[in-house]
């Protein structure tokens, strides 16, 4: 791009685009606008109409958020929405989990990706949103402090990991293995912290906490079931492949809503147990059917030479799967898997529709059922929508970045 003759610095002739770039920003903007927004009569008309619609929308949103809305329905029901029936004197367990998750996000980003300007902006905005929520209306200052410590842990974990050398080697392998190990152990650790040793009873998981428990259990459980399912479907043994195919087709054939009914009525007789456990089983079983198909697709996309080469160096069938084929297939299937994860994340709201389990949306219903907040329906649901979006966006963002950096080893 920069093509200045280096030998003769006195007589630099700027190419036209550099000359243009030198002019004041406002002039350049005016030129850009004329070219792109007002290039013809029809174009000008379209620009004006679009601008008017945009202005109306922005005005509407700003007016609603800052003037019209009564956010007390949220701030007054903070605990109800987020933790519901979780024992209040065990609040530290929730905060420990939040800090742990934030630390993990920092470690993950530091190991496989890097935080860009947009990521920092997102963290600042989301934190502003969170602090507004935690501190508004004279709440105890402690929750804000816990939150800030969590963000501090995110950056601390990031700062440590980003300083490690990225070049392949024993150190890098150890780093990746440790972080991956922590990620795998995270869900059991959090469940233990939340429930064991004097924590809540399972049925006391409510509100946003319930969504945050159900979705990862569904996703992780689904993945664990999906891998053998995908292999089974691709198996040459008829009985196995037929069984797996039937599972996939049957489970995908009915909506999640229907399967939650099964959890409510049928599974009660068969396995009994806590309703929440039955909901987890259904979510995992349902997710597995979709994930198995994504993995099967990835297995088919993998060049046949890979398993041939694995056999040629003497690996047996199991080793070839475990060391060569599966790692690559799972990597290929990351994008659709994340799509499925986000989908199941949003579908956790369905447990409120069918089961007497009160997740975030269900507790939002409870919040507006209180007499003084009945007019604030829209506020409550807008809030729920924004919270879901924030988490879904984080999932999509992390997967994009991690996927990009895993691409190094791709062919």
């Amino acid at each position, binding site marked *: 791009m920069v093509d200045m003759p280096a030998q003769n610095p006195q007589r630099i002739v700027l190419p036209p685009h550099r000359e243009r770039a030198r002019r004041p920003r406002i002039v350049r903007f005016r030129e850009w606008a004329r070219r792109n927004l007002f290039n013809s009569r029809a174009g000008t008309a379209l620009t004006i109409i679009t601008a008017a619609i945009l202005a109306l929308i922005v005005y509407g949103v700003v007016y609603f958020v800052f003037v019209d809305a009564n956010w007390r329905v949220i701030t007054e029901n903070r605990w109800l929405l987020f933790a519901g029936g979780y024992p209040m004197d065990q609040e530290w367990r929730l905060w420990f989990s939040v800090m742990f998750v934030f630390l993990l996000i920092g470690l993950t980003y530091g190991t496989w990706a890097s935080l860009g300007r947009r990521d920092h902006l997102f963290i600042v905005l989301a934190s502003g949103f969170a602090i507004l929520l935690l501190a508004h209306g004279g709440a105890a200052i402690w929750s804000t402090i816990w939150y800030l410590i969590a963000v501090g842990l995110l950056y601390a974990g990031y700062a440590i990991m980003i300083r490690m050398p990225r*070049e*392949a*080697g024993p150190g890098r392998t150890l780093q990746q293995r440790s972080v991956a190990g922590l990620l795998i152990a995270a869900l059991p650790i959090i469940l233990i912290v939340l429930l064991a040793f004097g924590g809540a009873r399972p049925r006391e998981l409510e509100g946003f906490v319930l969504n945050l428990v159900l979705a990862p259990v569904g996703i992780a459980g689904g993945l664990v079931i999906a891998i053998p399912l995908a292999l089974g479907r691709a198996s040459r043994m008829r009985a196995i492949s037929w069984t797996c195919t039937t599972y996939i087709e049957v489970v995908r054939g009915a909506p999640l809503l229907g399967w939650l009914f099964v959890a409510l009525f049928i599974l009660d007789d068969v396995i009994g147990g806590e309703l929440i456990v039955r909901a987890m089983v259904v979510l995992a079983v349902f997710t597995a059917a979709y994930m198995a198909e994504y993995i099967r697709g990835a297995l088919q996309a993998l*060049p046949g*030479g*890979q398993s*041939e*080469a*694995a*056999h*040629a*160096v*003497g*690996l*047996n069938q199991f*080793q070839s799967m475990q*060391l*060569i084929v599966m*790692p*690559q297939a799972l*990597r290929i299937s990351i994008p659709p898997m994340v799509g499925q994860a986000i989908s199941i994340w949003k579908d956790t709201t369905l447990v409120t529709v069918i089961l007497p389990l009160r997740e975030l949306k269900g507790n939002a219903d409870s919040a507006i059922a209180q007499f003084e907040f009945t007019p604030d329906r829209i506020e409550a649901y807008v809030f729920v929508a924004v919270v879901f979006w924030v988490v879904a966006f984080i999932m999509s963002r992390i997967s994009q970045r991690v996927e990009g950096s895993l691409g*190094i*080893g*791709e*062919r």
Partner: protein
Amino acid sequence: MTTETEATPTRDLESMEDIIIAENVDKWFGDFQALDNISMRIKEHEIVVVLGPSGSGKSTFIRCLNRLEEHDAGRIVIDGIEMNDDVRNLNAIRSEVGMVFQQFNLFPHLSVMNNITLGPRKVRRMPKLDADALAMQLLERVGIPEQAEKYPAQLSGGQQQRVAIARALAMQPKIMLFDEPTSALDPEMIKEVLDVMQELARSGMTMIVVTHEMGFAREVADRLIFFDEGSLVEEGTPQHFFENPQEDRTKLFLSQIL
């Protein structure tokens, strides 16, 4: 690895044992007969180059020698081990036969080092340090020790194929199979791979090479074998082949590629 490091072209192959025996081997793909009654014996330390037009069954034949394809009839014996449904025999054979593929087939998610050490560590239970040392030694041998920590996608085609050769050698095989090892390479990279193969041949390795590199065949091979339509049409020394081919199909093939 081998005692015969200073082999000369006039080696005494006659006194060597047959390390590969194929008798009346048939192979079918559905209704298509890929191999028709192939019989051949290959001696230890022998370099055999297999020629033939595409679809002639030459690749299928060498893939049968480490059972990437199962033969349907006949028998194959590798270093005294019968190739059959016995998994122990299969594993024993596969660890004695190294293979290099046209498309390299390196494992893209593993570093060069791990590509090479995977077999020794997982199959031979070699300790990691020993396997790493062996891998470095082999990378020196194929001339790219500085690439050890890179990933396959970061290497040129020629470098990838040399890693693939090192990977096969890491299992310390007695026999090396090459399935068109230079066909997927840019012309300027073919020589670096052929040089490695030539060095390997001099070291006394038993090699079966499917290739269209006639220079290599002429210089390195002890014996040339010509396949066409699943049959073994003609075999002989390079001299016999290039100066006095007998069969019409051989003559036609040679006239097309020389």
